[in-house]
C-alpha cells in the first residue's frame, strides 16, 4: 500500500501488463512511469529513481480483521466469492507463472511467509512458526521489530520496537483475558491493534507499524534474493 503523492503531484495507477521478477508492474497515468508493485520503485519513465512512500498495511484473514476492527468498512464486492487463483493457491507444486523452481530450499516453495522490509533489509517470517511463538522479537536491517499473534482469531501484527531512541522489549500478557503487550523497560501496556501505549509512563506513545507482506516463500525469495529467514529455533530464549 502506497501514498499516491510524489513530489506534490497525485498519481493514479493502472496495470501495465508487465512483470518484474514475477511481480506486477504498475504505470501512472500522469507520467507513464513504470513502478514495481512489490516495493514501489520506479523502474522506467520520467519519474525513474523515485520511491513511493509505503503505508503500513495488515494482511489478515477476513474473520481475524473483523475481530480486530469490528467497525471496518470493506471494499464493495462485485461477486468475487473465491480467489481467481484458488486452485493455484492450494497446490503446493505450482510455483508462479512460468513454472518457477524454488531456488532456495530454506523453506518449501509455497510456505506462507510474512515479509518485512526495514532499512533496506528483507526478512521472511514463516506464518505458522510466528503463530506458534505468539510473540517474536528480532532485528531487521538494524531496527528492532516485533510480530505478535496472540490467538488464531487475530491477525499477525508487526511493529518496530523503537520509540524515539529507545528500544523496548515486550511480553505478551492477558490480565483480563484480553491480550496486551507490556514493555519490560517501563511496564507500560500497549494496545496490540493500534500499537499505542494505553497505560503506564509511555501512555500515548506509538509503535510504528511495519508493513508485513503475505507471500509465498518462492515469490518473496525471488524478489528479494538476499532475504533472511527467521527461525524460531534460533531464538528460543527471547519470549
Amino acid at each position: 500500500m502506497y501514498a499516491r503523492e510524489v513530489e506534490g503531484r497525485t498519481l493514479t495507477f493502472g496495470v501495465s501488463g508487465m512483470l518484474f521478477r514475477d511481480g506486477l508492474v504498475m504505470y501512472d497515468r500522469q507520467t507513464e512511469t513504470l513502478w514495481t508493485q512489490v516495493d514501489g520503485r520506479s523502474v522506467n519513465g520520467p519519474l525513474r529513481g523515485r520511491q513511493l512512500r509505503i503505508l503500513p498495511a495488515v494482511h489478515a484473514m477476513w474473520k481475524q480483521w473483523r475481530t480486530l476492527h469490528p467497525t471496518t468498512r470493506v471494499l464493495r464486492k462485485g461477486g468475487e466469492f473465491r480467489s481467481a487463483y484458488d486452485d493455484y493457491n492450494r497446490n503446493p507444486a505450482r510455483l508462479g507463472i512460468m513454472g518457477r523452481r524454488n531456488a532456495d530450499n530454506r523453506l518449501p516453495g509455497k510456505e506462507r511467509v510474512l515479509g518485512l522490509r526495514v532499512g533496506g533489509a528483507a526478512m521472511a517470517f514463516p506464518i505458522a512458526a510466528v503463530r506458534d511463538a505468539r510473540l517474536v522479537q528480532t532485528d531487521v536491517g538494524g531496527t528492532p521489530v516485533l510480530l505478535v499473534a496472540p490467538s488464531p482469531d487475530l491477525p499477525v501484527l508487526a511493529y518496530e520496537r523503537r520509540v524515539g531512541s529507545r528500544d523496548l522489549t515486550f511480553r505478551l500478557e492477558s490480565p483480563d483475558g484480553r491480550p496486551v503487550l507490556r514493555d519490560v523497560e517501563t511496564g507500560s501496556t500497549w494496545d496490540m491493534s493500534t500499537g499505542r501505549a494505553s497505560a503506564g509512563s509511555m501512555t500515548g506513545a506509538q509503535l510504528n507499524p511495519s508493513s508485513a507482506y503475505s507471500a509465498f516463500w518462492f515469490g518473496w525469495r525471488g524478489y528479494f534474493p538476499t532475504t533472511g529467514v527467521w527461525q524460531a529455533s534460533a531464538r528460543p530464549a527471547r519470549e
Partner: protein
Amino acid sequence: MAGFGLPVTIIVLSVGLSLTAQDAERIEVVLPRDAIPSIDDPAFDEADTAGRVMADNELVIGIVGANEQRAYSTWQLDRHEIVNDVFEGRPIAVTW
C-alpha cells in the same frame, strides 16, 4: 497477486521496450496495458453488509487510520490488482 508469481498461463506478447539492459532482462510483457482493470472509483460497505459475501479465510489487506479502518479483499484484487483510493483525505494505492 496470489503471493506474487501470477499463476495464470500467459503468452509473452512482446519485449520491445526502451529499457536499460539491466531492467530489460527482468521486465516481461505478459498482457496489454489495462487488460486487468484497476478500481478507480471504489465504494465501501459496512462490515455487516460485507460479511454476507466474505469468507472467514478470505485474505484482506487492511489499513488503520485515526478514525477509520478499511479492508480490501485480495480475492477481489486478484481481478483488479490496484485500487486508487482516498483514505482519510490522503490519496492511496492499494496494490496486490
